[in-house]
């Protein structure tokens, strides 16, 4: 029998899950603004359906399942718009007859779908490991490594000295490297 131990607490969603969800979305839609909108929609859908949360999965897993649906909806919308656009295209030049506009658009994807998938799984593994370490250390590591904040800015924000910051970074990196050895390399 599955124990329904997981609780739902929307007050913590942004702090705890927004970066994870954002990374998940951005790899799939490749657009920061769209990814942001999808996160907003996911949280709102989560609020609307929180009464259905049974506690069998973690909040994060549950929110990811909502986000997945939102991403699918997003692509459905794009495809239906693209269909409409295709109908409206008029070929003015006879030589162009039969050439779809899409065929002329350069393929601007620098990464393959496989690369994206691996990177997304890697990102998920890093976020999983970040969840397991001291929250303050995780936050400082994120600010330094992901957001590229200056040491001084982080020190001011947390009211710590640069020496303290490097001690925290050292502990975070040691714990993360250990966790990634388990999660990623084994």
């Amino acid at each position, binding site marked *: 029998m599955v124990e329904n131990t997981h609780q739902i607490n*929307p*007050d913590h*969603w*942004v*702090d705890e899950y*927004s*970066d994870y969800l*954002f*990374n998940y979305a*951005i*790899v799939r839609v490749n657009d*920061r603004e769209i990814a*942001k909108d999808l*996160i*907003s929609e996911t*949280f*709102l859908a989560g*609020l609307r359906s929180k009464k259905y949360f049974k506690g069998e999965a973690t909040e994060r897993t549950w929110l990811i399942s909502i986000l997945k649906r939102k991403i699918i909806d997003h692509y459905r919308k794009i495809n239906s718009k693209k269909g409409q656009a295709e109908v409206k295209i008029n070929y003015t030049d006879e030589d162009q007859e039969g050439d779809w506009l899409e065929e002329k658009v350069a393929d601007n994807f620098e990464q393959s779908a496989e690369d994206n998938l691996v*990177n997304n799984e*890697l*990102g998920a593994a*890093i976020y999983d490991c970040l969840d397991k370490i001291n929250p303050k250390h995780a936050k400082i590591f*994120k600010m*330094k*490594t*992901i*957001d590229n904040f200056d*040491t001084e800015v982080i020190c001011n924000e947390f009211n710590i000295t*640069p*020496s303290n910051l*490097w*001690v925290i*970074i*050292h502990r975070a*990196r*040691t714990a*993360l*490297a250990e966790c*990634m*050895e388990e999660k*990623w390399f084994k």
Partner: protein
Amino acid sequence: MNSENPDKKYCNCTDAGCYCDKAQYNEAADWELEKLVSHLDKCPKCQEYTERNKKLTELCKKAELTSLKEEERKELKKLLQENLKNK
């Protein structure tokens, strides 16, 4: 951790770890890198840490991690709060 001690040639493992971390962010001074290199010549434990640390840096770069800006986070919180009130 010792943040500035350019005179002595060698450092201990704690300092070496710190210099190695700083190097991952390109924030290690030349004298810190020199001390780290000297230390690594004779410390297998720190060699191992350095390898792991470099691997972690590579993984973070490869994952192309990104995060929401503070104002974007605030907007999301506001949106959630407003909708929670209306429930």
